[in-house]
């Protein structure tokens, strides 16, 4: 592999890693606050993609309007899922909420199959993300430039919110001890709702950028990115947004480099993600940036 090829692979890895990171942020936020692994995150992402598709193709909206509209509606969906499926189980054992999350995931997938049909739909890549830059042997899609920038901006925005605003302070407090925070007179349900809205909107954004890179959407499209984002979140230290971005980048680079160095191992790419997951759970369950929780 020569220099140009290596650079090309690094760019590929950065793009894929940033996409995983974008999706993993939403995953990790919900976990950080509720200690709930929201397995429906990938399917919320799918709904977000279809909403954007309807906006862009059926209603002819420009891509940014379709993106914003989809994020707003998906945020609403996230709040509704929380209200309907998770809030009644807030004081139930954690395993009940987890099983409910899996139920929500199946519900959304099958609803998608009924409403949108099983055949994949073509997703348009907007012109701004479709420019092909050519430098020598190197080819870079403008999408690959924008996605890391957007991920970085989202991360910066979230860090500001979490550490510099009253809402963020409430979120951090909530993640420590929900009951005590409630006793302090903070409306925990509102904070949780905002977290779900944010997490779901980010899932929609992540999904839409994913669909721009791999321009087809189908009702089961969220399953694998969802699982990979979960792995990324665990790698980085679940509950930690910086960790989620690091985990996403690590996973993206790892997957690309595995196949780049050993093309014959391409069939094991998904296995790599889950081997990493098992390894981390065994040897460093708190992830790269996570802190050991006092028991």
């Amino acid at each position, binding site marked *: *592999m020569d220099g140009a*090829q290596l650079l*090309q*692979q690094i760019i*590929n890895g950065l793009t*894929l890693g940033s996409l995983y990171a974008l999706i993993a942020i939403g995953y990790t936020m919900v976990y950080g606050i509720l200690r709930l692994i929201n397995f429906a995150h990938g399917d919320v992402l799918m709904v977000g993609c279809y909403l954007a598709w309807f906006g862009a193709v059926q209603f002819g909206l420009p891509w940014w309007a379709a993106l914003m509209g989809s994020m707003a509606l998906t945020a609403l969906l996230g709040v509704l899922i929380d209200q309907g499926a998770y809030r009644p189980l807030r004081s139930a054992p954690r395993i009940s909420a987890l099983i409910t999350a899996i139920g929500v995931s199946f519900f959304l997938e099958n609803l998608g*199959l009924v409403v949108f*049909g*099983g*055949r*994949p*739909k*073509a997703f348009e890549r907007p012109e701004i993300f479709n420019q*092909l830059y*050519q430098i020598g*042997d190197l*080819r870079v*899609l403008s999408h690959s430039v924008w996605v890391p920038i957007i991920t970085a901006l989202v991360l910066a925005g979230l860090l500001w919110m979490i550490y510099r605003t009253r809402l963020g302070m409430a979120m951090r407090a909530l993640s420590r001890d929900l009951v005590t925070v409630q006793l302090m007179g903070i409306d925990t349900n509102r904070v949780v709702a905002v977290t779900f809205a944010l997490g779901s909107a980010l899932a929609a954004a992540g999904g839409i950028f994913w669909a721009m*890179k*791999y*321009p*087809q959407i*189908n*009702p*089961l499209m969220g399953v*694998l990115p969802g699982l990979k984002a979960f792995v990324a979140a665990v790698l980085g230290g679940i509950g930690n947004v910086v960790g989620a971005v690091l985990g996403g980048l690590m996973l993206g680079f790892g*997957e*690309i*480099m*595995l*196949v*780049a160095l050993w*093309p*014959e191992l*391409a*069939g094991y*790419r*998904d296995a790599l993600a889950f081997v990493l997951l098992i390894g981390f759970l065994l040897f460093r369950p708190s992830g790269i940036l996570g802190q050991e929780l006092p028991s």
Partner: protein
Amino acid sequence: MKRLALVLCLSLLAALVAAPQAGAAEPIKVGVLMEVTGPSAMYGQNGLKGLELAQANRPTVLGRPVSVVVADNKSDKVEASNAANRLIQHEKVAAILGPLTSGNSLAAAPVCEAASVPMISPWATNPMLTQGKQYAFRVCFIDPFQGQVGANFAVKNLKAKTAAIMVDIAQDYCVGITNFFEKAFKDLGGQVVIKTPYSSGDQEFGPQLMAIKAKNPDIIYVPAYVNEGALIARQARELGLKQPMLGGDASQADELIKIGGQAVEGLSFTTHFDENGVTTQSGQAFVKAYRAKYNEAPDSCSALTYDAYNVLLDAMEKAKSAEAKAFVPYLANTKDFPGVTGVLTLVAHDAVKPAVILQVKDGKFAFVATVNP
């Protein structure tokens, strides 16, 4: 005398009343096991259209109505095997049409074999499906032939001396056909410079394509299902690979063009059927009826499912029975059947018939040639 007349009238009336009951014979149940949802839904849904048309054209056999029971295998091997079981045990079907893909058919066939229920796959081309089985059939050609046709086209028409092969290791179809292509291509003096694997559901093919780019082959042979095939084509063009691409029968779905866009222009592939390559009268009638009903061109899956339905009913008619034991020998001896996908003869449960080569041109599938076996 009056009493006699009355008795006669009454018995006549009774006969009239009884007659329709005798006519409403018990329906013959035919199971249809299709990829209605899941990653292969585009094939399964076209298959169902072909089936619907076939049943509308020929709703009865042996004077009994045909009742079709559709089961969705969700494009999944485990579901295919379970659904085959359900059709046989619960619905008591006389025969099963489907599944379409080789992987799902290979999963369902042992279930049918164990229950002695014949299964006819319209579209599964992996040769293993029928080998050593009494009850597995298909109405399409098999991959040793398709791989040969592909290799011939690569060498003679595309003037290829070297080829890269991309193989979906999760699909029996892709693993099989790439091996047959490789062998045929080598026999014709070609050289396979790289063979890179991927798995169904993968979306990022950059690393594999970069490895292929480094070898600079004359063509890329990628007999992928369209979910992956369209993305491979797009990413190949984005990474600056300009080689012609050659695919297999799984390339024939509208989604290839809708998702692949400009990147699949010039992609050619071997397949079973195209409306411009129709050779039989029944084929012409089929194309006309299909276009009238669905307002689109029929594809291989719809045409082959149509044929599978009629081949089955023909065998039942010849055997004058819907009992598997009685009609399976007739099914196995199907000869010169005027199918819509060509005149077909079953040899060792596999159809022997011509292949078609198509190419994507101006956003449409364009007919290139018919290749006889």
